[in-house]
């Protein structure tokens, strides 16, 4: 079995014909066995980064790609030993399930017995036992993607690369396949780079997440770090919902005057804006409240209730509360934000590099 290897990109940029810079010089290290998620809005350079790793795309001169100690910059994809899973499955339509999965093994000229053994093994892994002879056209979207996954892992690649593999599936199936992929990646212990624009997918699958913005990495960290200590406003906004409170005045003891009341956050430096997540804001009796406001919108979501609270000065806070009680629009509400739930971007304006 070929060893899973680490991936190192050094100063990899990519400028397309016409001078369009899809990727600014980028450094990135993925540990052997780690799953790194590239997360970001469409057009931010995720696919380009993945294609540079795969060998489908070359970085601009000066950029280098290493797998472990080995410099693979000049190697084309067919020599790099990578497994790829695409959004549109990319299964060979003229071959059945078994022939698709064993394609790479046949290229490697493995013995018939070994090929059959591996086929059975991966079919079992992706829960498609009994589907070997099926034609591709007779599979559902989820099954197709599992065949594509089986095809990629059958050759035991050094790294596995995913480009939005779940984007074409409906929500239910997406959740299930996400769990299956997560379990499989842990079981295989293979180095994986996973591209997505879906933050839930990123949180669930990534050992670390690189949030990308306009051709560069805005922040690289564990899902917890990314969510609770976003490096900048872009990351905070992209990962989950976030509230902003403009600071009106700030006292030396760590008290911040914001629209609707005052908040305590001695751990924060001088700040023009305070951030907090909707689910961290608590509802308290008006007389004990740090902030007072009026509910201007109340949306019942089933598992929770989403309130929009106007605290004055054009500030609207998004608050998540229990859905057991009714929260009629128009009523007054008292809010409290625990100190540790308030944060500022760790590097305001600055871009973190991996």
């Amino acid at each position: 079995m070929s060893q899973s290897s680490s991936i190192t990109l050094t100063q990899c940029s990519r400028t397309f014909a016409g001078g369009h810079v899809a990727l600014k010089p980028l450094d990135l290290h993925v540990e052997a066995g780690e799953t790194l998620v590239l997360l970001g809005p469409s057009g931010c350079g995720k696919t380009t980064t993945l294609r540079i790793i795969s060998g489908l795309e070359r970085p601009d001169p000066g950029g280098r790609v290493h797998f472990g100690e080995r410099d693979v910059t000049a190697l084309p994809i067919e020599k790099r030993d990578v497994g790829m899973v695409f959004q549109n499955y990319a299964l060979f339509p003229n071959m059945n399930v078994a022939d698709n999965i064993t394609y790479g093994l046949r290229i490697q000229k493995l013995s018939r017995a070994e090929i059959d053994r591996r086929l059975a093994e991966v079919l079992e892994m992706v829960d498609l036992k009994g589907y070997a002879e099926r034609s591709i056209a007779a599979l559902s979207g989820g099954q197709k993607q599992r065949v594509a996954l089986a095809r990629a892992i059958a050759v035991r690649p050094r790294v596995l690369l995913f480009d939005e593999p779940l984007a074409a599936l409906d929500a239910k199936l997406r959740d299930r396949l996400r769990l299956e992929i997560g379990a499989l990646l842990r079981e295989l212990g293979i180095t994986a780079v996973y591209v997505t624009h879906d933050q839930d997918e990123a949180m669930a699958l990534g050992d670390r997440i690189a949030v990308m913005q306009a051709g560069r990495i805005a922040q690289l960290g564990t899902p917890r770090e990314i969510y609770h200590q976003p490096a900048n406003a872009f990351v905070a906004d992209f990962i989950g919902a976030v509230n902003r409170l403009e600071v009106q005045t700030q006292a030396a003891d760590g008290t911040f005057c914001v629209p609707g009341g005052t908040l305590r956050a001695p751990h924060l430096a001088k700040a023009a804006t305070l951030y907090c997540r909707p689910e961290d804001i608590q509802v308290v009796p008006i007389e004990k409240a740090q902030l007072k406001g009026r509910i201007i919108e109340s949306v019942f979501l089933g598992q929770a209730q989403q309130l929009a609270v106007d605290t004055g000065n054009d500030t609207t806070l998004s608050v998540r509360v229990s859905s057991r009680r009714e929260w009629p629009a128009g009523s007054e509400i008292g809010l409290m934000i625990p100190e540790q739930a308030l944060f500022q971007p760790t590097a305001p304006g600055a871009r973190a590099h991996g």
Partner: protein
Amino acid sequence: MSATLKQPFGAAFFDRHRCASHRAKLTTLIALVPALTLFAAFWLLPFSRLLLMGAEADRSSGVSAYLTLLTHRQYLISLATTVTLSLAVSVAAVAIAGFAGFFLARHRFAGQSLLVAILTFPLAFPGVVVGFLVIMLGGRQGALAQTSLWLFGERWVFAYSLFGLFIGYLYFSIPRVITTVMAACDNLDQSLEEAARSLGASHWRVMRDVIIPGIAPALLSTGAICFATSMGAFGTAFTLGTRLPILPLNIYGEFTNYANFAMAAALSVVLGLITWAALALARKLASNALGASV
């Protein structure tokens, strides 16, 4: 009670509904009348006349022209030659233009669109002009004859032979295949090739396992159209030599030289049937290949 009330109402409604659909059918029929008239006048009538005429007695043998065709060496050779020539042209055109079309679809270079325009230019020529071009190339005063005369002291001439025909037919078949193949390559899903390469496939394997199966339907149907065109091509053949054993020339000869209408009709029917069968087969193969790929 309510059921008995409902019953007649339901039936009446159903009746009215059926009336409406009858009327719709009638309207459709009336609308089709001009088309059907045209079909009958310009296709059905002449074709059935042709079919019947082929069954009449041949002028030289005195028996049914169909029978004469099937029992006389001369006609059978003609038939075999035409089919073989057309097959050879189709295969050669698909092979040559297939590669060229794939290359043109996959590479961008300066002057490319000009090259494509030049390559597809022969489509604009009628058969006579193509025949004329072949004579300029391989005729007694042609480029090849001049060159070989200068080099070896003898004139090499191929224009007035079956090979000349082959070159002429190839000439107008290639552009058609190139344009079809280019369109088919543009429609190929690039990620299939990328997936194959990620699994270690060399360029040749990608070609064999992904690209050729992917454009096979296009190759088959364009090949069949080349075949059909070559079977019926007349202008080029007529320019290059009226004595070549080719069905369209035979038909012309029987018709004008010998006034042997029965044989001309029989040959026409056979030519039409073979061409039609080739087109139908290609359509079927292409749709099968397509069905497997979706």
